[in-house]
């Protein structure tokens, strides 16, 4: 019921309702029920107001993959250690080499992707991990 969702969203983002009261109405595990596409429903600039009751923080400075790229808009790592494009590049380099322990090297290279923060229930990390392992080892495994 989209109407009910928007009503709930307006309650959650309203600045007129005290924080304590808002928390009182929420399940303790409410953060697990945030839709992966929540950003589509929140006015830009109000992300933190939306996330605060769930105990989450939005970081607008966290770099994103630029638009036009297949990963456009997705968050990348703050330190670049889990930047998917960089990892995929390294995976391609590794794919061109012959090593006996290549599988473990690919696993070590790609596994940080699974540690990225993402909205609960989202599949971005798994999909990027899948792409990374296939780049590294080929999809004919």
């Amino acid at each position, binding site marked *: 019921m989209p109407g009910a969702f928007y009503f709930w969203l307006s309650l959650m983002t309203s600045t007129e309702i005290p924080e304590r009261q808002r928390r009182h109405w929420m399940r303790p595990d409410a953060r697990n029920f945030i*839709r*992966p*596409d929540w950003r589509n429903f929140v006015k830009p600039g109000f992300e933190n107001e939306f996330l605060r009751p769930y105990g989450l923080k939005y970081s607008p400075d966290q770099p994103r993959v630029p638009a036009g790229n*297949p990963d456009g*808009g997705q968050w990348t790592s703050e330190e670049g250690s889990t930047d998917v494009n960089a990892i995929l590049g390294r995976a391609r380099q590794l794919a061109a080499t012959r090593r006996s322990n290549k599988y*473990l090297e690919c*696993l*070590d290279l*790609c*596994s940080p992707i*699974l*540690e990225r923060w*993402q*909205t*609960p*229930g*989202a*599949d*971005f*990390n*798994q*999909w990027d*991990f*899948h792409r990374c*392992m*296939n780049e590294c080892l080929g*999809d*004919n*495994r």
Partner: protein
Amino acid sequence: MNKDIAREIIRASFKCGSELESLLPALKKGCSAKDYNDYTRRVAKAIDGIQSALLNDTLKRFPELKSEIEQNLKRTGRAMP
């Protein structure tokens, strides 16, 4: 196999992977750095096992589902909602 069954397989493999992935924050909180690294690798290996056994073959049979997954991810954050 038809495309709907293929979608079911993809949905199930992401669901299994998601269960495993959800272990990582708890492992990070409750394990030593050495144990955490060790288990992260095991979890990654298990997810790769599921993906290479189910996802790769299914996407090879239905390559068009790859772009469907990418569109779904952009739209809903889920691979097969």
